């Protein structure tokens, strides 16, 4: 059997590498769409400040995108190095979904990225704008496939299991499995929302410092507008996603809610310290009947509690419970940020209300924290399965020893900590520098003319 310590380290390794990774694609999805929007606005209005803002955010996007690429490639190989029996059991289904991501998204975005980053003066403006739109589209398509793969692991469909191996039967049902539409909407909205908060925070900072006023106001307006719309929308999408999870992964919902017993109208637990062994909550603060109202839309609503599932089939309750609360709490903060901004805007005071701008300045990381907390909720909540009902995590590991996994984990932690902290520091420096710093004279990497001159 697999060494339990090796298993634990392999899980930590995947959790660590994918958590570091998701930060960058989430920001790349949002910032590529932001840059594409700015460039389209620039073409439509001819207003140069859109172009300056686009140039500035393109630089930040480029650094983030590079980090997303290099932190993503190890994941597709970790499925083999540490999780070969998972690959064997699910490869027939998961493999093609990741394959379609490479075919339809990676080539599109990586190729047009070259033109988007280096083609400012080398190709006609319409082609440059088109390239930026294609890159943004590529990041969306990428999200489509990887979330289809993840959703299939949560709510598998369209397959049969033969000798422990999942074999696809109906690709449409595999891709559009029950949780996919909800997860896709929820995660893409999260990516756009998170990036909008970063833009909002940057705009607020420049305004407070009295720098780049024209660019700062545009950033702030666009950021506030997006957060005011996407924040409340995300509440609705999240609620729908929760109802879907209740239907397909009831044990996960019970863990998210710290809900042990299905004995009467369900309460909403606001705070507690769940005790997995004792099968109860400590220090619980709960509101009667509200849980039923939220999850069943009925004051007498009831739903399955953790005790309805065998102990061996329950996810670890404590991390799921708290991660969910962190995510939902940040959601409330973001809605407040967006709606307050929209209110101040409608009163014509958005650019002058210092307390709001100051609060906004510090808001930039909270979207990322919410994304990480959300993923911890859904991935930990899927335990003890890696592919729900098909393979248990303990049966998914490669036949590799403790020393091997430990060494690679240390290497990943060291390299990622050094490289990505420096990367985030550079992004911070670029943001602090502001749009003007991005204004250095740009030359061409190489000119077609020089080739012509030789001939």
């Amino acid at each position, binding site marked *: 059997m697999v060494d339990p310590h090796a298993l634990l380290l392999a899980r930590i390794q995947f959790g660590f590498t994918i958590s570091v990774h998701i930060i960058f694609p989430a920001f790349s999805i949002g910032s590529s769409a932001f840059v594409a929007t700015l460039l389209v606005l620039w073409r439509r209005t001819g207003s140069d400040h859109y172009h300056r803002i686009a140039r500035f955010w393109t630089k930040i996007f480029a*650094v983030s995108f*590079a980090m997303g*690429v*290099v932190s993503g*490639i*190890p994941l*597709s*190989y970790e*499925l*083999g*190095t540490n999780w*070969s*029996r998972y*690959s*064997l059991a699910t*490869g*027939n289904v*998961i*493999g*093609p979904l*990741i*394959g*379609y991501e*490479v*075919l339809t998204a990676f*080539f*599109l975005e*990586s*190729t047009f*990225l*070259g*033109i988007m*980053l*280096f*083609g400012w003066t*080398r190709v006609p403006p319409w082609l440059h704008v088109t390239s930026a739109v294609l890159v943004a589209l590529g990041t969306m398509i990428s999200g489509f496939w990887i979330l289809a793969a993840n959703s299939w692991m949560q709510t598998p469909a369209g397959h049969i299991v033969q000798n422990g191996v999942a*074999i*696809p039967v109906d690709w449409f049902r595999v891709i559009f499995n029950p949780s996919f539409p909800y997860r896709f909407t929820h995660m893409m909205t999260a990516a756009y929302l998170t990036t909008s908060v970063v833009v909002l925070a940057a705009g607020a900072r420049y305004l407070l410092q009295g720098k780049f006023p024209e660019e700062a106001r545009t950033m702030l307006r666009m950021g506030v507008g997006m957060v005011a719309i996407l924040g409340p929308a995300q509440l609705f999408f999240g609620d729908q996603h929760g109802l879907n999870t209740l239907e397909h992964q009831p044990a996960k919902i019970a863990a998210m809610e710290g809900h042990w017993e299905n004995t009467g109208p369900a309460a909403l637990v606001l705070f507690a310290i769940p005790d997995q062994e004792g099968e109860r909550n400590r220090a619980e603060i709960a509101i009667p009947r509200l849980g039923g109202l939220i999850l069943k839309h009925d004051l007498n609503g009831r739903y399955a509690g953790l005790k309805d599932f065998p102990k061996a089939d329950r996810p670890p309750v404590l991390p799921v419970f708290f991660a969910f609360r962190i995510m939902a709490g940040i959601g409330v903060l973001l809605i407040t940020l967006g709606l307050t901004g929209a209110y101040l805007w409608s009163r014509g005071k958005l650019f002058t209300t210092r307390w709001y701008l100051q609060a906004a300045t510090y808001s930039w990381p909270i979207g990322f924290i919410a994304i990480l907390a959300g993923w911890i909720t859904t991935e930990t909540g899927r335990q003890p399965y890696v592919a729900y009902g098909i393979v248990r995590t303990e049966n998914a590991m*490669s*036949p*590799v*020893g403790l*020393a*091997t996994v430990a060494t*690679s984990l240390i*290497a*990943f932690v060291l*390299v990622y900590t050094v*490289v990505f902290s420096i*990367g985030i520091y*550079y992004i911070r*420096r670029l943001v602090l520098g502001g749009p003007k710093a991005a204004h*250095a004279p740009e*030359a*061409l*990497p*190489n000119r077609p*003319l*020089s*080739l012509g001159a030789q001939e």
Partner: protein
Amino acid sequence: MTATYAFWLPLISTGVVGLSVAMYVILDGFDLGIGILFPYFPQEIERDQMMNSVAPFWDGNETWLVLGGVWLLVAFPLAYSIITPALYVPLIAMLLALVFRGVAFEFRWVAKPHHRKWDIAFAAGSTVAAFAQGTMVGGLLNGFRVEAGQFAGGPLDWLTPFSVMCGVGLVVGYALLGACWLVMKTSGGVEKEARRFAKPLLLTLVAFIVLISVWTPLQFERVAVRWFSGRNLLYLSAVPLITAALAISCWRGLEGRHPTIAFNGAVGLFVISFVGLAISTLPYLAPPSITLWEAAASPKSQTFMLVGTTVFVPFALGYTAFVYHTFRGKIRPGEGYH
């Protein structure tokens, strides 16, 4: 009908995996090669020029690596689940090296004037990634111990004198590709210096190709049988002849004023070596026990992936060509875009 389908489908999939890996080796080969040559070009302006010559392409180039890996997972989950744990150490080393090399493209410009550490990251990352890839080829030829459909060997089984030699050989080969690329794409001092490096690199690479070609059949009986039995000897003698012709063509390209011929010759050497490797290994995907038919996934998965590949790879090739066309021509000292 079904029997022929079950026979041909894994062969086609093997072809696609092979093509993806070959595309990767050629395309990422020259930009890894530029990283390998980085230490020999000490001036900042030269390094800027070298990096600029590949910056618009590297990400697209690396995508072929992901495609190859994913295709292996899709079409041959069994081979994937044996090869990846067996080559654990060089694989992780390669991935981490590619992290350093990849971020260096962006970080180096942002960090200026304190970019020296990213110069080192770029050079070391490229060299380690190339060496690790070479050792993986050597490890694959060595074969893996498999019991009950799982890798049953130790974490350092891949490490042999043979695999180390393959590693060094690939570093030399990528350096040659990089040098030929620089001759073709740069001007001034960089071009001159690259031209000076290219010839000794070509000779060293040819020496490695000869060494590996002699060593493999001596060490692995299945390889000797494949190359030297009966008529195979006659047909396969074309491989060394083509290799020699490509090496000569590359040499002459470097002597004359046609850098494109030199670059194509170097690419040709990689292609023919890759063909030689395929001849030595097939039909085993995880030698010496797992053949491509044994490792194959459900036909449904392979077919679905094949449809996607047939539709989308032409697009990928199309816009790859478009980007190379957009950034065609030579780059001058002092030209950059950051």
